[in-house]
């Protein structure tokens, strides 16, 4: 494999991973606030469809993205309303929306299937694009891809370096304690569920206006479910979630190379990888066996290992908060 081929593989990986970065980080934000938005798959499909339709109608990609974000937030608002206000099961509502969104997108998107439409224009960054290898990998893509890099960094900084980010994390851990410190738990949960939903919507538009350019039924290939798996794999940390997304991208692009070179194994088989990894990570982090295994090591050694391996879910994830 020569350098050229490697660059092609990596570039494909980045392109594949970009929608997943948006979706994964959106879900991370929502779950950090203590809400599981299981509707990701349906949300992404609906947003991909509406985003493309809006861009097609106005011949404006930006309008498409805005429409997609609104649809994403709208789906998230149903989850938020059902789960936070009506105190129903987040899982049930999210799951039904995942199925409903998928079918609704196919139904409403029927007239625009495979219709050519606008796409995000490429934008090479002057000077930087000429750097050997790195230039081709990172600086010869389009604004959406650049935006995804910015998103990863901004959300990471928001989580771990800012005051509202600290409050966001605290609401998902111990809503009662956050309330005691003056946070409006319900309002924050609504806010971050909607924000996460909007990012999922953008992930949908990233499909139909960029990565796959166009709309066809169920074209997003289960990315919503994959995003959910990657959030767990990434331990609810935006940086790790992004790494998970890129890892998946590399796997996919390697698979397509392998497919053309070696044998007839379709790339779908490799789509399983995130789920296998998710289960492994869950086994690693949930059971007590890891503690037993490491119990003999001195605390100084054990603690960093455990901290690196075990990124626990937000303690209040999926739980209903009742203020007395």
């Amino acid at each position, binding site marked *: 494999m020569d350098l050229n081929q490697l660059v092609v593989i990596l570039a494909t990986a980045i392109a594949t991973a970009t929608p997943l970065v948006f979706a994964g980080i959106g879900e991370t934000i929502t779950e950090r606030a203590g809400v599981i938005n*299981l509707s990701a798959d349906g949300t992404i499909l609906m947003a991909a469809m509406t985003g493309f339709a809006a861009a097609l109608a106005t011949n404006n990609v930006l309008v498409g993205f805005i429409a997609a974000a609104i649809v994403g937030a709208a789906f998230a608002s*149903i989850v938020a*309303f*059902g789960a936070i*206000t*009506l*105190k*129903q*099961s*987040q*899982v*049930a*509502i999210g*799951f*039904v*929306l995942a*199925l*409903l969104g*998928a*079918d*609704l997108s*196919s*139904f*409403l*998107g*029927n007239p625009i299937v495979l219709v050519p439409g606008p796409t995000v224009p490429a934008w090479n960054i002057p000077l930087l694009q000429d750097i050997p290898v790195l230039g081709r990998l990172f600086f010869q893509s389009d604004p959406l891809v650049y935006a995804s890099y910015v998103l990863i960094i901004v959300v990471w900084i928001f989580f771990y370096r800012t005051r509202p980010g600290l409050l966001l994390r605290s609401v998902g851990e111990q*809503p*009662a304690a956050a309330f005691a410190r003056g946070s409006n738990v319900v309002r924050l949960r609504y806010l971050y569920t909607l924000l996460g939903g909007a990012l999922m919507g953008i992930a949908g538009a990233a499909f139909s206006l960029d990565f796959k350019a166009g709309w066809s*039924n169920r074209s997003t290939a*289960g990315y919503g*479910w994959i995003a*959910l*798996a990657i959030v*767990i794999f990434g331990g609810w940390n935006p940086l790790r979630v992004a790494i998970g997304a890129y890892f998946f991208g590399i796997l996919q692009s390697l698979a397509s190379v392998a497919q053309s070179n070696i*044998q*007839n*194994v*379709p790339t*779908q*088989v*490799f*789509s*399983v990888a995130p*789920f*296998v990894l*998710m*289960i492994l990570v*869950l*086994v690693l982090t*949930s*059971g007590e066996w890891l503690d037993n295994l490491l119990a003999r090591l001195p605390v100084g050694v054990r603690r960093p290992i455990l901290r690196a391996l075990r990124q626990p879910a937000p303690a209040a994830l*999926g*739980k*209903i*908060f*009742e203020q007395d």
Partner: protein
Amino acid sequence: MKDNSTTPSPALALRPARGLTYQAGALLLSFLFLTVIILLAGESPFRVVSNLWDGAFGTPDQVARVFSTLAPLVLCSSGMIYTFTAGLYNLGVEGQIVAGAIATTLVLREFQGLLPAPAVVAAGIIAGMLGGVVWGLLAGVLNIFGKISEIFAGLGLNFVAQGLAIYLIFGPWKRPGIASMSGTEPFDESLWLGHIGQTDAAPVALVIALIVLVLTIIVMRNTHFGLRLKAVGQNPRASFILGVPATRLLLSSFIICGGFAGLAGGLQVVGLFHRLIPSISSNLGFLALLVVMLISFNALWIAPIAFFFSALNVGSLQLPMVLRMESSLSGVIQGTLVLMALLARGFSERAHKRAGGQ
């Protein structure tokens, strides 16, 4: 603050008299929403309804297809009654169908020609059940001993089963010469389950589904097992203190649900597709989840609701031809009904609480 998020919530309220107004409202809102959606797609709702009806019941062939969809749907819904009753969201049912189908295909491939055809078919069906049991047990072990949420364990295993099926179809079990999404080489007609005439309906599959349904109703109403499952599902801690062996019961519910879903998968192979295809489950597992959420785990209602959903699925198949409309309308209708019912339940509970109830 209380943690009642992990208990599955039935869509229909427990106390029908109070919930009735809200359920009626849910139905009305669903109709409104669906009318708007259909109008948006540029069609008249009346034409759509009459086409759905024609599509489901217009010809004997189509009626037969409704019943061939009904059988696996009833099987999966019945299985899900056990896990929901035990308080589990078994989202892994899709994968359990696929695992069953894979196991059936394996047995059919290995034993065809070696044994008399009816024996091979019977062995295949049993293998399907066992395949589903293995997949259900896997989710159960991850949940109970690995302390992993059954939701994520189940979802993950769905995709693993799906990947396994695709790998087999394109790898070791590929058709001679060409490997494609259309599946493995069809089995010899002697290994097909008997059909009614030239239609899709296999009476054996229907009978099996009916037996399982009746069995489920009896187990839930009349046996110690059903009662204990209910107890564990509603309050695991109190059940434990009362002396109910929770772990064993939870594991059994995973096994039973897996077994019935696997049975459905096996019957899809021998009764309908006669080969392994990537979409062997036809999303019936997820549809069954919707059925069970809508009927609030009351097995008596499985038959009518599953029949209604099957008719929708089949009826919508001809929408693309006649009205140039996507067949996913059936899914939109099903999803809308369940979503509205869930929200209505929330409103009804809230109103009850406001009115000074417990």
